[in-house]
């Protein structure tokens, strides 16, 4: 049964009950009123008759008469004349015997019942289709008068009223049913709208909204439904994005692995199949070695990336002195003619020393490679309130502005040919970005495409009881596909 139908039925039920109860109360109340009015009147009349009889009997007594059956018959005749205009009948009894004078119009049933009545009692007696109100009073000298009044009209009136009422109720209920049906369908229409909307959203139409106007609960429901739909839509987009990034990453990764594998397998197979000249053997072995090295570097970086995603970071108070010194030392044999200036700094930051060293090493190494044999690479530290900003700058080949936002993506290379020659894994900057991210900061790149690059990040200074978020900006720009 639908909600609209339930609503209509409920309205109808309430209406029917109210109507019936109200109507009954009204009808019966009315009936009671009429009956008591009649009873009042009849009672009064009966009293008058009693009084008349009483007066006569007393008069009779006074003149020394006898109250016998004969006298009673006379009295009856007297009463007859009085009552013929009214719709009533009576019976006179002498209590000595049950014989009495009975008015001709008194029905037998009523008469029987009247006999059994006590003094001052009144009762309603049904005789065929008529109803009589019977009163009985005992007068002096054991004379009793019973009067019966025809009150059928009142009962009949009640019957008619009841019929009229029922007919009216039927008509009213039918009209009410129609009105209720229409009304409840109109009221529950928003619900259908909500149902349709939720179904289509479940089917994938995430932009669907209900937008029901108004200020009532249904409108409120519509608004919160729309808010929910909004949330679902953006979450779906997020997930799709995340999935796409993961797919891209996997695609790039498998390409990066397949290429060296092809060379390794190819050359190894050649060596296996035939006896080669020493120079050929050497060349083949050299290729195998170089490509295997590439795979090794790649897998190392990959593992690092994975580990960063899984293990929670343990921060400690790390002085920059050691990492900076380590880098300067490590880069010396590699830098060639490139000038490396590392600004000495002994400030302490909240970081993981090994990761920080890795990060700095990678950035400095990249900077040196970008210089392509000549230029200057600088590492600078700048403290500001509770934060320390580290910047690695180079005067080498910059990054074109349009590539700037892509450079931190895994396997992205600006200059593919050069990257191949260098044997780079393509994950260097992605790893740096991840390290920055787990420290709660991010890499900020600045390059104008021709005059060098500056990469910087911010860390919290290790100040006791300091609450510090190293970089207020969100990290969702650099979200890794591996997550």
């Amino acid at each position: 049964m639908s909600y609209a139908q339930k609503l209509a039925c409920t309205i109808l039920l309430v209406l029917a009950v109210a109507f019936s109860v109200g109507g009954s109360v009204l009808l019966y109340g009315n009936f009671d009123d009429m009956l008591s009015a009649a009873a009042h009147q009849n009672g009064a009349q009966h009293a008058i008759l009693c009084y008349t009889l009483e007066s006569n009997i007393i008069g009779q007594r006074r003149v020394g008469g006898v109250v016998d059956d004969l006298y009673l018959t006379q009295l009856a005749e007297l009463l007859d004349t009085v009552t013929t205009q009214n719709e009533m009948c009576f019976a006179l009894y002498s209590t000595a015997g049950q014989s009495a004078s009975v008015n001709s119009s008194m029905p037998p049933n009523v008469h029987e019942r009247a006999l059994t009545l006590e003094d001052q009692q009144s009762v309603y007696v049904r005789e065929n289709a008529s109803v009589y109100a019977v009163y009985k009073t005992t007068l002096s000298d054991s004379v009793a008068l019973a009067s019966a009044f025809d009150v059928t009209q009142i009962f009949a009136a009640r019957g008619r009223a009841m019929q009229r009422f029922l007919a009216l109720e039927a008509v009213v209920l039918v009209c009410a049913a129609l009105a209720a049906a229409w009304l409840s369908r109109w009221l529950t229409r928003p619900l259908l709208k909500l149902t349709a909307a939720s179904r289509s959203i479940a089917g994938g139409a995430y932009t669907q909204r209900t937008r029901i106007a108004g200020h009532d609960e249904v409108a409120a429901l519509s608004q919160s439904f729309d808010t929910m739909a909004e949330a679902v839509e953006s979450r779906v987009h997020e997930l799709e994005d995340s999935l796409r990034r993961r797919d891209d990453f996997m695609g790039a990764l498998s390409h990066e692995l397949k290429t060296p594998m092809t060379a390794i397998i190819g050359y190894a197979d050649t060596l296996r199949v035939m006896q080669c000249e020493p120079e050929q053997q050497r060349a083949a072995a050299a290729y195998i070695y170089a490509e295997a090295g590439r795979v090794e570097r790649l897998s190392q970086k990959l593992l690092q990336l994975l580990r960063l995603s899984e293990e929670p970071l343990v921060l400690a108070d790390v002085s920059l002195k050691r990492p900076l010194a380590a880098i300067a030392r490590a880069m010396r044999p590699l830098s060639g003619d490139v000038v490396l200036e590392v600004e000495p700094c002994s400030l302490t930051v909240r970081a993981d020393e090994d990761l920080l060293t890795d990060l700095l090493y990678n950035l400095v190494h990249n900077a040196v490679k970008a210089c392509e044999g000549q230029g200057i690479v600088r590492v600078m530290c700048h403290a500001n309130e509770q934060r320390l900003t580290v910047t690695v700058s180079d005067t080498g080949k910059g990054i074109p502005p349009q590539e700037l936002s892509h450079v931190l993506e895994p396997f992205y290379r600006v200059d593919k040919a050069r990257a191949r020659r260098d044997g780079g894994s393509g994950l260097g900057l992605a790893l740096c970005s991840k390290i920055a991210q787990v420290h709660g900061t991010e890499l900020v790149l600045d390059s104008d495409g021709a005059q060098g690059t500056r990469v910087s990040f911010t860390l919290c200074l290790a100040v006791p009881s300091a609450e510090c978020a190293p970089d207020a900006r969100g990290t969702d720009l650099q979200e890794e596909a591996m997550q």
Partner: protein
Amino acid sequence: MTRIIIVEDEQAIAELIAMSLTRAGYECKVANDGLTAADILEEETFDLALLDIMLPGADGYELLEYLLPTQTPVIFITAKGSVQERVKGLKLGADDYIVKPFDVQELIARTESVLRRTGRGGMQLSAWDVTLDVTAKRAMQNGTPVPLTPLEFELLELLLRNRGAALYRDVLYERIWGGEMEDTRTLDLHIQRLRKKLDWQEKIETVYKVGYRLKGE
């Protein structure tokens, strides 16, 4: 001689392919990026082009467009192996598509298949007085057909393809009979028979501790 151009920016792979194809009897030219390849293609014609798709300069698809009007057959070699990439490559007009990492033998087989199909160099291998028609599996010596069993034919073909190189025993066995070599005599017997049928006792050389070699030019 059938000329093949190899366009691949990974030096190691480019050299590997060139080495294998040269040994198989083709003349190869290598280009490491799209622009160099385009220049070469302008000057020279080839019987087949092996193209990588992801190249610096012009990419594989662009080179394909350039090559289509010249009726040069093209095989794409690339790591982009998804179905849609392959379909795309083939729909654009490539004759075949091979995905990295590949078995060099497979590459050679596909190369020959394409050459055969496009009617360039229906594969014929020859040395001295013997010519092999690889497609028809027929051997001719001085114009007369030589009756060879299928295994003998394959063995001869393998030796011809790797002319001048000493092939290891177990590899010879693996390539022709499949599986591990258990008994060395099958191979030796077949070599003996070949020598006898072709009268090539000197030409098919035994290489000590290695296997056999067909004497080079």
